[in-house]
């Protein structure tokens, strides 16, 4: 196996881990709000969060590139903050992945929170737990299966992305070249044996993840 392949694998795992961690942090309050709010904004936010599910990755990548580029509002902001420009950096990949994998984390969490229902939280309130206390001591533990599903799906989906990271990351070996791009490069160069190693590994990984999820009861 090439050294660049190993670097691509390491980068992919790092990207997926950082993305999943960030998504659980952002997604938990968002999913909680979506599951419990009666606000009219709810349907708008719900649709926005789900958008990456139906949009072609190239569309997301393109708009992110424009947004975060030197003339985009995001790019101006990051430059003003002294962060430089995000496209073609690891941080850029993280931002893109967080947006791209958002529905895969938020939806299982939202379903898990909705499945708890109001009663355990009302019971907690009558047992002197403040709303914040009840969230941590009742809602989070009861939603645990949802967190496992969300984390696994978020991680696996980030590992498998191609179009968005190609647009925003630019396929720079050792820097922004992730697994799926390494496979693409091998195929382009007719290095089918190397492509098989990586593609087969991805296939096994994805199957193992789904098998683990299904065997513990998908929506439990």
């Amino acid at each position, binding site marked *: 196996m090439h050294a660049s392949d190993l670097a691509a694998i390491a980068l992919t795992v790092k990207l997926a881990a950082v993305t999943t961690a960030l998504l659980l942090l952002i997604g938990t309050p968002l999913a909680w709000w979506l599951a419990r709010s009666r606000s009219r904004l709810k349907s708008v936010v719900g649709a926005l969060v789900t958008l990456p599910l139906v949009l072609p990755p190239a569309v997301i990548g393109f708009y992110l590139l424009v947004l975060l580029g030197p003339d985009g509002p995001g790019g101006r902001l990051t430059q003003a903050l002294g962060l430089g420009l995000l496209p073609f950096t690891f941080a850029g990949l993280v931002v893109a992945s967080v947006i791209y994998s958002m529905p895969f984390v938020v939806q299982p969490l939202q379903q898990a929170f909705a499945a708890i229902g109001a*009663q*355990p939280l*009302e*019971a*907690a*309130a*009558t*047992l*002197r*737990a*403040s*709303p914040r*206390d*009840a969230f941590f*001591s*009742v809602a989070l*533990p*009861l939603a*645990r299966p949802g967190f496992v599903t969300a984390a696994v799906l978020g991680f696996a989906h980030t590992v498998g992305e191609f179009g968005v990271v190609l647009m925003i990351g630019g396929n720079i070996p050792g820097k922004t070249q992730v697994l799926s791009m390494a496979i693409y490069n091998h195929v382009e160069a007719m290095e089918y044996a190397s492509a098989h190693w990586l593609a087969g590994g991805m296939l096994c990984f994805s199957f193992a993840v789904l098998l683990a999820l299904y065997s513990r009861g998908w929506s439990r």
Partner: protein
Amino acid sequence: MPLQAIEARFELAHPGFCLNVDLRLPGHGVTALFGPSGCGKTTLLRCIAGLNRAPGGRLVVNGDTWQDGARFLPVHQRPLGYVFQEAGLFAHLSVRRNLQYGQSRIALAERRVAFDRAIALLGIAHLLERQPAGLSGGERQRVAIARALLTSPRLLLMDEPLAALDVARKNEFMPYLERLHAELDIPVLYVTHAPDEVARLADHIVVMQEGRALASGPLLETLARLDLPIRLGEDAGVVLDARVAERDSAWHLARVEFAGGSLWVRDGGQPVGALVRVRILARDVSIALAPAIGTSIQNSLCATVGELADDSHPALSLVKLAVGASPLLARITRRSAAGLRLAPGQPVWAQIKAVALIG
């Protein structure tokens, strides 16, 4: 205003439903909120708990204002216990951790109900290490009640705690509630649509219909009112406090004395001297002008006719009788009433076909 009272005034209007009550309830004993499904009794209980917000409502519990004008104490700051229809135990915690959940959130100085006392009272010591999913419906409710008690509530709210149980489980469960009543000095608001639970447990009753309180008063007095039984239908009847005076082991009967007379009832195993309640339904009481001879009826009491009222069906009328100091209700046909020429003040014999000994 005396301190030992619960003052509750709520107005809530939803499409198709409105709640409008202004109640003064005793600050001790068991108050039954009684009425058919959808009459607003659960909504009232949830307003008292603060689970539903009724703007402009007022709630004062034994001198402490929980809601008034702009003041609204959030649920978790109200010193109350709430037992839901379905127990609402936390599925991720063992029975012991469920019990400790509320208790651990109370300051040590405010813990007036000891852990061991609560589990003994509800008979759940053997369940402590189990998970809620493995418990029967009755066991879950007992755990839920103990969990509520362990927060040392100053008001215990129970929303049809027996609704999810079958009749046999219900009868097993009742003694625990009676013990609670006898041993702890916590006022209880008890929502139910089951007259037998009211008769057995309540000291005070609020009869609700379509979001309003039709009547609120001491149980024995209120049940004997003529205007309410019409609405209670088949369940119209009185409850009397009595004492076991004599037991006849040969016939398995017991004689109980109440203010105004005595009755033979099936022996329920209570010792002589025990305080019991008996319930006599209006449909089980008939009226005769002379003592009957050659009848299977065991209980025939000398009574005086009080008021007469029309019943729900035009063929029927309800007669209020006085047996000494105690009231009785009799449901007879209007033709019988006319044939007997019943009038207030008239002495008659009340023949009682069935008496239920409760508790």
